[in-house]
């Protein structure tokens, strides 16, 4: 098993820079998700890893092999395309067999008709057939092997595409939004299956998606990209709880993180509109910062309690949770809080409330969007 490393990748088409000095190193067997809004360069990065595009600067490594100048066919990498890209004229079984036939049969053995007279051809074909069947069984598509792509549903085609990638046990897997053409139910189901397949095969995987929930739920580590830059490369928990950039905080999490303008005073208290919101926050004192609080970290209280004055604008009941939309008194800033349904029963539309947050849940971003963070030994001691 080998890791996949993209080092210092830059790519520009004319004046538009698609990628700027991106470095992502996936450990052997790791599942890495590349996530970002459309146009952030994640698909270009994947195509560079596959060899379908060439970087202006930087290098691509598979383990100890420098693959930067290697054509795609020699890289031993399999890719699942968003459109599945199955060969329309071949059956599912023939589609899955193609990578094996290309690798294990000689040019003469592959010739139609004549090929069957070349020594060894029959034996290799049998091996390929059994391998195709084995792969199809693991994907539960062995009953579809005789069908052509045009006769299959989107979900079935997607499985055949996975099968074609899995069948030759490649050194690395690349997946370009493989779930985006499936309906919502099937997507959640297939998501779990891909994670399971990855766990069984243990092959290093780069997975491109624009869906942050998909990235968080599937990946060992998540690379958040924006405007051709890698903003953060961390575990799902890391990018969610500890975003290093305001754009990461904004992109990851649903509903979106609440962002308010405020300041950090000399005593590490976060003030919003001049009023104290949270104390003992691990942030550098300064003015004009942006304060981020996840919806589930907001604490709502009755009027008169500590915190900022606000009022309830609207309540959305979603079954397992309830969203409370809040308007800040004075500034009119809008926030959203996520509560357990039981905790939300006390609130009604138009009600005056106060909002507060625990100091460790408050994220402070500087004017350039970078996270402002310092360790406060005092609080560590108090907590310890």
């Amino acid at each position, binding site marked *: 098993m080998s890791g996949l490393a993209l080092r210092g990748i830059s790519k520009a088409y004319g004046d538009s820079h698609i990628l700027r000095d991106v470095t992502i190193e996936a450990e052997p067997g790791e599942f890495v998700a590349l996530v970002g809004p459309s146009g952030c360069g994640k698909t270009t990065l994947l195509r560079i890893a596959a*060899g*379908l595009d060439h970087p202006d600067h930087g290098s691509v490594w598979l383990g100890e092999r420098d693959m930067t100048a290697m054509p795609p066919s020699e890289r031993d990498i399999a890719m699942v*395309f968003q*459109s599945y*890209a*199955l*060969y329309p004229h071949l059956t599912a079984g023939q589609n899955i067999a193609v*990578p094996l036939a*290309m690798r294990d049969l000689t040019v003469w053995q592959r010739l139609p008709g004549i090929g069957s007279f070349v020594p060894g051809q029959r034996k290799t074909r049998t091996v390929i057939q059994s391998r195709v069947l084995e792969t199809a069984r693991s994907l539960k598509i062995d009953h579809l092997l005789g069908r052509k792509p045009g006769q299959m549903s989107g979900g079935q085609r997607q499985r055949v595409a996975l099968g074609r990638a899995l069948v030759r046990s490649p050194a690395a897997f690349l997946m370009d939004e493989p779930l985006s053409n499936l309906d919502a139910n099937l997507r959640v189901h297939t998501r779990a299956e891909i994670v399971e397949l990855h766990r069984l095969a243990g092959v290093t995987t780069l997975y491109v998606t624009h869906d942050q929930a998909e990235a968080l739920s599937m990946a060992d580590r998540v690379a958040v990209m924006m405007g051709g830059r890698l903003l953060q490369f961390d575990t799902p928990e890391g990018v969610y709880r500890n975003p290093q950039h305001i754009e990461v905080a904004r992109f990851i999490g649903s509903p979106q993180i609440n962002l308010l303008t405020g300041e950090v005073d000399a005593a590490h208290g976060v003030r919003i509109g001049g009023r104290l919101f949270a104390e003992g926050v691990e942030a550098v004192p300064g003015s004009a910062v942006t304060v981020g609080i996840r919806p589930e970290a907001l604490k709502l209280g009755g009027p008169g309690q500590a915190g900022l004055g606000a009022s309830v604008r609207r309540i959305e009941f979603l079954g397992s949770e309830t969203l409370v939309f809040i308007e800040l008194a004075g500034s009119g800033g809008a926030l959203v809080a996520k509560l357990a349904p039981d905790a939300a029963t006390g609130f009604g539309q138009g009600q005056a409330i106060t909002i507060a947050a625990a100091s460790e849940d408050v994220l402070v971003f500087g004017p350039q969007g970078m996270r402002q963070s310092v360790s406060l030994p005092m609080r560590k001691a108090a907590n310890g």
Partner: protein
Amino acid sequence: MTTRAWNTARALRLVILSIGALVFLAPYVWMLSTATKPREEIFSSSLALIPHQWAAVENFSKAFTRVPMLQLLMNGVIVCTIILVVQILVALPCAYALAKLRFPGARALIAAIMLGLLVPIHATALPIYVALSGAGVLNTYFALAAPFLISVFGVFLFLQFFRAMPDDLINAARLDGMSELGIVLRVIVPNAWPAITAFSIFSVVAHWNDLFWPQIVVTETAMAPPPLGLIFFRAAEAGDDYGALMAATVVVTMPLLVAFLLAQRRFIEGITLTGLKG
């Protein structure tokens, strides 16, 4: 059919289409009719489709005995096959490269192809004739096929067709380990049959019926394709024997007619695919 379906608009449409069909069919029907008439009836002042006296056997036997008809048909088949095979062998990889590969000069080449579409054979006929004559290859199959071996129309048709093929399909093939030639043979060709069929139809129809070029480079009946053979027949043997001439014409048009009836659906597909008229 319900009465609603047989309203006046529908009837009118049918009448107009029928008249159109008659106009286009008339010469062919007249040819068939003439081929079955004896000489006196052809030149008689009365117009009749059905002859009073049948002379079909006589006319057709003249057509087969006085003209080396099988030789003419064979020439047609050989020339059309050479042209079609080479055209496809050249046009497929060429169109693939232009449609799916990025290389310097690709745009200029496509522009050149568009220009090539605008130049008719009549403009280049003389220089090509001089060259073939200089090379001493007049009156050969090669001379008949040479100007048509590379078809810019073929490249253009395939280019348009390949552009519509998804890039990911080709990328997937590259990752599966195929060479560029392998991609053309294993992915492009099996999926390009509609375009290849359409092009084959155009090519064969055009070159089977071509008279202009054979008339320039062929002077011997042994090398003549069918239409030129008919001209020779009229000039040398038939004189005013139109019955025999028409019988020979029926024989010459028969292969295409049979091919059309067998592959009617493909013909229509081909014409709608290219959006061009043949």
